[in-house]
C-alpha cells in the first residue's frame, strides 16, 4: 500500500476540478498493477464525484446544487450568535456543507493492468463547494504492485556502491569511485534487481547487495581491460591505467574482483556464488581469445560471437540467473532468464559496436577501429564484395587518422550497419521469446522494455 496527497487550488465558489490525470499519475508512480485507489476529501466543503467532463453538464450540476441548497437561505450554521468556538474568519457557508452532503467525501476506484478503470465518459472530480481555497485529497493505492519499480532500486544500488566505497582503503576506493561516479548504464545491476523480484523469496536488501557486487565485478574487469587495450578514456574520464599507471590499475582491479566475490559469497547462496564465478572465468578466458584474435583482425563472425558470448553476455546471463536464484525462482525460470541474458548481452555488444560508426552517438568515431577492437560491423564490411578489399588493406597497415576515417566511411557506406542492427534486433526478439515460456510475476513487460532499450539506444 502506498499513500499520497493530491493538492490543488480552486478559483470559484463552486468548481468541478478534473483530477483523473492526477490519479493516473499517482498509480503510475506507485507501480500498482491491479487493485484499488482510495480517495478521501480532507475537507467538509469539498466533495468527490465521478461523471462526464462536459462544460454544459457541469453548469447543470452547479445549477442543481444551487437549487437544492441555495446560498443565504437562512442556515443555522451561519447564525454566529448561537455558535460557539467560531474563528474570526469563519465563513458563511452552511449551503456548502449541505451541498457536500449530497455528494460523497470519498471514492474507491479500480485499477487493472496498471490502468484506472473508468467508463468512456467518466472522469473523477473534486467538487469545490466553498471556493476559492487550497485543497487536499488523501489518496491510497492498494493491491498487487510491480515488484521493483525501476526508479527506486537504481537509487539503492548507487547508495550501496557509495557505502561500500566508503569502507575501502582510499588507494583503491578513489579510482573506483571515479569510475562509478562517471556513470554507466548499470544494466547488469538492474537485471539482478529485476530478476530478484521474480521468485517467492523477494529480498530487496540482498538484491541490492548482489547488484552492487556485480557492478563492482564488471568495473574491475573494465579496469584491467583498459590497461590491456591501452585505452586512455572511459565514460569520458581518464582510465585508471592512464591516470595512475598500470601497477595501480592491476591492484584496483584485483581488489574489487576479490571484494565482489566476497560480498557475493557472504550473501550465502551457493547457486548465486557459482553462477557469477562461472561468468567471471568466461570473461577472463574470452579476453585472452579477444587479444589473440587481433592477429587476424578483424576476424570472422564465428570468432566474434565466441568472444562476445564470454566477454559480455556471460555476465548479463549471470546477472539474470543470480537474481532469480536469489529469489528462489523455479529452475526453468532461472534457465529461461539465463538464456534471455545471454541473448541480450550479445545484442547489447552489437549495438555498442555500431556506436563506433555513428556520428550522433556523442562518442568519438573510429575508436574501436584505431584500437583494433573486435567489431561485427567491421567484420561484415571486410567481407563486403565492394568495400571489403579496401577495408582489409587499410586494416593490414598502420592506422592513422586518415586510415581510421576512411575505414569508418567504408563501413557506413556498406550494408554492414543495417545487417548488424537487424541481427541485434533478431537476438532481442529471441530473448523476448525466452520470457514467454515462463511465469514472471508481471515483470515481463519491464524485461522486454529493458532489452529493447539496450539495443535501440544507439541505432
Amino acid at each position, binding site marked *: 500500500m502506498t499513500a499520497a496527497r493530491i493538492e490543488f487550488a480552486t478559483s470559484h465558489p463552486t468548481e468541478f476540478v478534473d483530477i483523473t490525470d492526477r490519479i493516473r499519475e499517482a498509480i503510475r508512480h506507485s507501480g500498482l498493477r491491479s487493485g484499488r485507489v482510495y480517495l478521501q476529501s480532507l475537507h467538509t466543503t469539498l466533495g468527490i464525484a465521478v461523471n462526464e467532463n462536459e462544460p454544459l453538464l457541469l453548469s447543470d450540476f452547479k445549477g442543481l446544487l444551487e437549487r437544492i441548497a441555495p446560498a443565504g437561505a437562512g442556515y443555522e450554521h451561519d447564525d454566529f450568535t448561537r455558535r460557539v468556538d467560531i474563528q474570526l474568519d469563519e465563513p458563511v457557508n452552511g449551503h456548502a456543507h449541505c451541498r457536500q452532503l449530497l455528494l460523497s467525501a470519498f471514492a474507491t476506484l479500480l485499477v487493472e493492468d496498471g490502468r484506472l478503470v473508468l467508463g468512456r465518459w467518466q472522469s473523477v472530480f473534486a467538487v469545490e463547494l466553498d471556493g476559492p481555497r487550497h485543497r487536499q485529497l488523501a489518496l491510497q493505492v492498494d493491491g498487487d504492485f510491480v515488484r521493483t519499480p525501476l526508479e527506486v532500486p537504481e537509487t539503492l544500488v548507487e547508495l550501496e556502491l557509495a557505502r561500500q566505497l566508503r569502507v575501502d582503503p582510499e588507494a583503491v576506493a578513489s579510482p573506483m569511485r571515479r569510475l562509478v561516479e562517471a556513470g554507466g548504464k548499470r544494466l547488469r545491476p538492474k537485471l539482478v534487481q529485476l530478476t530478484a523480484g521474480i521468485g517467492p523469496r523477494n529480498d530487496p536488501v540482498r538484491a541490492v547487495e548482489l547488484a552492487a557486487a556485480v557492478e563492482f565485478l564488471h568495473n574491475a574487469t573494465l579496469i584491467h581491460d583498459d590497461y590491456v587495450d591501452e585505452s586512455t578514456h572511459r565514460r569520458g574520464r581518464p582510465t585508471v591505467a592512464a591516470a595512475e599507471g598500470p*601497477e595501480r590499475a592491476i591492484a584496483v582491479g584485483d581488489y574489487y574482483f576479490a571484494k565482489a566475490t566476497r560480498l557475493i559469497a557472504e550473501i550465502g547462496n551457493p547457486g548465486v556464488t557459482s553462477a557469477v564465478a562461472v561468468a567471471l572465468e568466461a570473461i577472463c578466458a574470452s579476453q585472452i581469445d579477444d587479444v589473440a584474435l587481433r592477429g587476424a583482425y578483424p576476424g570472422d563472425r564465428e570468432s566474434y560471437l565466441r568472444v562476445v558470448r564470454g566477454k559480455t553476455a556471460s555476465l548479463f546471463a549471470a546477472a539474470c540467473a543470480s537474481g532469480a536464484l536469489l529469489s528462489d525462482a523455479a529452475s526453468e525460470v532461472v534457465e529461461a532468464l539465463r538464456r534471455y541474458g545471454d541473448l541480450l548481452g550479445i545484442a547489447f555488444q552489437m549495438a555498442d559496436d555500431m556506436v563506433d560508426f555513428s556520428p550522433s552517438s556523442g562518442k568519438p568515431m573510429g575508436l574501436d577501429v584505431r584500437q583494433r577492437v573486435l567489431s561485427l560491423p567491421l567484420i561484415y564490411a571486410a567481407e563486403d564484395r565492394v568495400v571489403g578489399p579496401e577495408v582489409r588493406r587499410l586494416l593490414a597497415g598502420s592506422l592513422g587518422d586518415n586510415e581510421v576515417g576512411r575505414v569508418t566511411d567504408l563501413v557506413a557506406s556498406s550494408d554492414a550497419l543495417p545487417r548488424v542492427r537487424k541481427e541485434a534486433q533478431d537476438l532481442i526478439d529471441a530473448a523476448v521469446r525466452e520470457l514467454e515460456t515462463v511465469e514472471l510475476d508481471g515483470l515481463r513487460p519491464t524485461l522486454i522494455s529493458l532489452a529493447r532499450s539496450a539495443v535501440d539506444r544507439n541505432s
Partner: protein
Amino acid sequence: MQLLDRELDRLEGLWSDGLSDTYRDYLESVDHFDAEIQPRLALAAALIEVGLRLQGLGARAAPPTTLLMGDLCLARGSRLLADNAPLPVQVAFARAVELISSAAASEQPAPATRRLLQGSLGASR
C-alpha cells in the same frame, strides 16, 4: 589427474612452469578437508598465488597478455573455491587478495601471499 587436466585448460604451460610445485605445496595445507575436494582446493590456492605473481601485483605490471593469464588463474581459482570450499574459506581467500592488492595499491609491503593463502585454507577449522 583428470580433474587437473580439465582445470588446466589454457593454463597447461604454467603447470610445468612452477604451478605444479605450488600445487603440491598447498596439498599439505588441505588435509583437514574431505579427500575429494583436497586437490580442488590446493589447485585453487595455487592458481591464485600464481595468478597474482603473473600479474606482477605489488611489483612491475605484467605485460597485457601475461596479465590476462593471471586474471584467468584468479578467476578459475575463485570458481574452484565457489564450487568446493566452505563459505569461511571463500571469504578468507577473498580477504587475503583484498589485503595484498590494497597494499600494492598503497605501495606498502604486503604480507607473504603463501602464508596468507595457507591461513585462508585453515579458516574452516
